[in-house]
């Protein structure tokens, strides 16, 4: 029973939503609106779940004094601190919460994001080796596209930007579409498996 009831909910609601896609009728649209309000009502509880997990993991670490437990202190302190600041002074522009967001969260996020540039460089360095014919083609294409994007490309040859444009537009787009099609089908298959109850790992275990 513990398994069957959730499974039943999934199957019934799943089929209802499949039908919703094909049925534009008012009844179907109203049902969807109704469902949306439920989702909105349920989601805040999930936040609680996440915060509890965070607390449990880090408080255990601190309690047990596992290596690097100090980081857990910082994590929990930041969590409580940010939350408290938000509750006390609100989250409008100009509050300490927004100050934190603008001066801590945003620059740190931007820093992590900008690391991408370095990582891309080193990944490119490692990956582009003329190991085989295919790899050589990839290598040459990469160099053309890289040159085509910067002013020096046109200086070398007028053909480079055009070739770069062609590579992006034709072979690249073709491959992308091919993958996208496979992904679409894979998604459909997985969804169908879930709907039919074949795939039920998401409920824990499988059997």
């Amino acid at each position, binding site marked *: 029973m513990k398994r069957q009831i959730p499974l039943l909910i999934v199957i019934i609601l799943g089929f209802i939503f499949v039908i919703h896609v094909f049925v534009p*009728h008012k009844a179907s649209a109203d049902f969807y609106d109704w469902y949306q309000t439920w989702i909105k009502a349920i989601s805040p509880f999930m936040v609680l779940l996440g915060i509890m*997990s965070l607390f449990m993991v880090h408080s255990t670490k601190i309690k047990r004094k596992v290596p690097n437990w100090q980081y857990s*202190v*910082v994590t929990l302190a930041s969590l409580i601190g940010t939350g408290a600041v938000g509750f006390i002074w609100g989250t409008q522009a100009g509050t300490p919460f927004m100050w934190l967001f603008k001066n801590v969260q945003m620059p740190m996020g931007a820093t*992590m994001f900008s690391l991408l540039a370095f990582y891309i460089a080193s990944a490119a360095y490692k990956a582009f080796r003329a190991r085989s014919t295919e790899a050589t083609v990839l290598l040459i294409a990469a160099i053309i596209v890289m040159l085509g994007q910067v002013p020096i490309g046109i200086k070398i040859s007028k053909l480079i930007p055009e070739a770069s444009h062609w590579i992006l537009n034709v072979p690249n787009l073709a491959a992308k579409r091919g993958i996208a099609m*496979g*992904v679409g089908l894979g998604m459909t298959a997985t969804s169908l498996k879930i709907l039919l109850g074949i795939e039920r790992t998401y409920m824990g275990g499988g059997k």
Partner: protein
Amino acid sequence: MKLTFARTGFFLFLLAFSFLLLPQTTHAAINESEYIVENLDVNDIPNDDGSGLMLSWKPLPQERRIIEYRIYRGITPDSLFFIGKIDVNVKTGVMGDVMYYYDTDYNYFLDTQAKGKLKREKGQKKDGSLYRRYPRDVSIVGPQLEHYSILGVIPEKDYYYHNEKIEVVTETDTTVYAGLKLHEFSGMYKKLIANHVYYYSVVAVSESRHYYPHAEPGIGIPRENAPEKSDRFYAVFVEDVSRLQFEWKLAVFADDHLDHNVYMLHKKDLAKFNKYVDEQVQKELNDIAVKEDSTLAVYTPKSENPAQLISARYCGYPYTPSQTASADIVDGKIVNEDRDIDVKIDVDNVSDYLFVFSFTDVARYETFSDVVSAKSTITGQLPIVPPFLIIDRENDKGDYNRVMWGKPVVYLTNSTYLNEKKTHLQVNYDFKTNKNFKVRNIFFKVFDEEGKEVVYVNEYYQDFKIKIKLPENGNEMNTLFFEMRFKCNNDVGEDYVLTQILQYDEQTQSLVPGDLYLGDENVNDWEYYIYKRNYTDQEFRLSKKVAGTQREVFDNIRYKNVHFKLVRHFDDEKNLFLVGPSFLVRRGDDKKEIISSNLYPKEFEKTILQYEDELAKHIASKDTLETEDDLKNADDAIEYYSKQLELMRDHPIQKVAASLDNPKERIKFLDKSRHYAKNSFEYKIVKSNGKGIFTETNIYIREGVEPVSDENIYITSYTGNGIDHFFPRSNWFNVDMLPAVIAALLFGSLVFILIKKAKKGQDLYIRPIAGIQEIDNAIGRATEMGKPILFVPGTSSIGDVATLAGLAILGKVAKKAAEYDTKILVPVRDYLVLPIAQEIVKEAHYEAGRPDTYDKSSVFFITTAQFAFVAGVNGIMVREKTATNFYMGMFWAEALLLTETGSSTGAIQISGTDAVTQIPFFITTCDYTLIGEELYAASAYMAREPLQLGTLKAVDYLKVIILFLIITGTILSTTHLTFLINAFPEK
């Protein structure tokens, strides 16, 4: 001091929160009086109905670092409520010397999101005069109602079924109201009342959200003004049919407009008329002046309007009214009985007359436009409106009607040379059509300046561009003439040709499209106005105004209706707001009389009795009356009451409603009746040049059709429904989705067949996937090294199918890990994924027979912030030195950041994602990558169960079918056969 970890942690902690002291201390020693807003001024807004005030003040200089200005309003200077704010960018400050805030129209007053209790504004002392927004508390808001005009917006269902009948007894009489709780209103909106005194103040808020003292409250009194002048008015005389046509521009503020009028005056009367207009302006100014200073003398205009009214129409607020009118001259007269218009006009000398347009408002102010004379024309010069058609729009939930007219139109939009020699030209085009004409081919014939045909293009697949090869004759082509024809599913006719030129433009140095001609008609000269009216409207309103190239309009009709009710009274004991219980159901078939009903049947009956009494009284009074005027008044009253009684007792809807004893059923019936009345529309079209040269069609009538002979009682009283009134239908199936349904069914049956096959033990071949085969080895490696495994199930939510696929793989990996007794770490970015992942890992340990090794805290939530999550996971990789990393699911920009770090710690990495843009990053940095669909196949591949394998194989077969369709489609459309492409919907 030695810096241990504990101390570092402590310092980090201090550092992180030391900033909190900063913003709080910065304003410690300032002179607050410098932060009070200056020059606060409250002024009446011109041309309105006496409901608008404009606040202005001098913004504080940028150095003061103000983040917002908050505005307060009240009816006494000592209790002002927050009503709105203007945000300011601290860095840039306010540009300009004055800031404005408008308190106009119906705007926010109260809704369920308001706070429960009244609170003083931040920084206010115990006796401070500023409060926050109005609370939900009826005892506080209730007394405010009389100082404003409050409009309650109530969803139909709440109004009908959630009301409470409240009787308010006063000395003179008893009034019945429908009482509603605040949450039954979707909102309440306020409007200021003319000649009422209001107080306003403004507070500046600093960057650190410190509220400075408020400015001395300013007084504002909104005044009723005359309407704004229409700044464009055109008059046209169509000679051969003796018709006057008028077109005007609407005013921006039209809330209180009552009528749109057109007057005619003789040229010789112009001076008199101008005097009259001046006097009217004087009168308005004097009215306001007298109100401000009652000692002033009241001004009375002396002259009479020499102009004669020839057209008048109710303008139908709150909708956008129509902006064209016409008056036919019959036997030298313009007659309109409804408005008592009977004006003589000399048809042969229309040029002797002048015309003027005016708006009148509910306060009877009238504003005239400039005087114009009529431009003469003949019917031949007027545009021709192509036949038009109204049908229900298919595949929707019943909220659109489809209005379509004419044949398709194609026009050039742009052109680009494709080579240096300028012999290859790409021309972009666009086309508009409607449901009647599905475009198959567009034929472009291009001529040069000498009229020689340059090229002929048959555009059998419309991709909005054609490529043209120009002859290489040395000199550039300066002008190209395009002739465009159509081939559609319905015949458009041989002579249906559109022409347009491409002309060289010095400025852009390219060929630029000119105007589009359909025969002799310049398509760009005209616009279409779609007018519509339902069973509750008195006049037509403007639904849409579209360009001359359009051929179809979807007219939106809201399928959920609301009731607008004035809220004047309240009941603070029961916590209710009181609104009137009577409501409009529809109008009579001639759209003049109102058929209304009441929430409470008894009240409705009471009204009938009252009217009967009145009627009897008036009939009786006739014997005693003497003067002719009194008699006429009595006759009018008798006529009015008998008509009303007829509508209340004898109209089919009222009869049915009266016959229903169950009040719920009665309301349900009235609700449906009102819904049909509100949503059934009749249409007409005007094609105009915007300057009075227009043709107006009759109301569209669907010929050869019976009215909707629905058994449904609700619409039997709507005689025209289906013929001239159109009610949008809710559709049960979206036909555009048919290919998807077929594909889904096909896929379903393939799955079914193949599962059966697999169950029978047939071996279904699946191509080996290296990444999946290596999973075992990778787990083994971690075991050998004694290091944990890291598994990231994507960074998306549970609603993403990729996450589900990732979790399915997690189940398998966790089981293997449990068997080998290797620790598995699962960091999660989504709250909902967390319990699911925990359950999966727990179950896997049970299945492996090692429930003792399951540690709940090995599956944990980090954060929802994208890059903070990356930082967290990277930290784990570096500190725990994980031996094997799995990334399975959806990833965005964080993909490379994760895998590159993993690769630097020397871990074996296996990834799988369907994010096309991230796949290259995974391939370069991971040892094995599951590309796109392989991610979805992985769990089936690992499980090797017939059910899973069957589905997997079905995907392969479906893919074959799709590939076949793609290839056939390509071949067919290359040979100009487009039926296969057209069989699929565009989106």
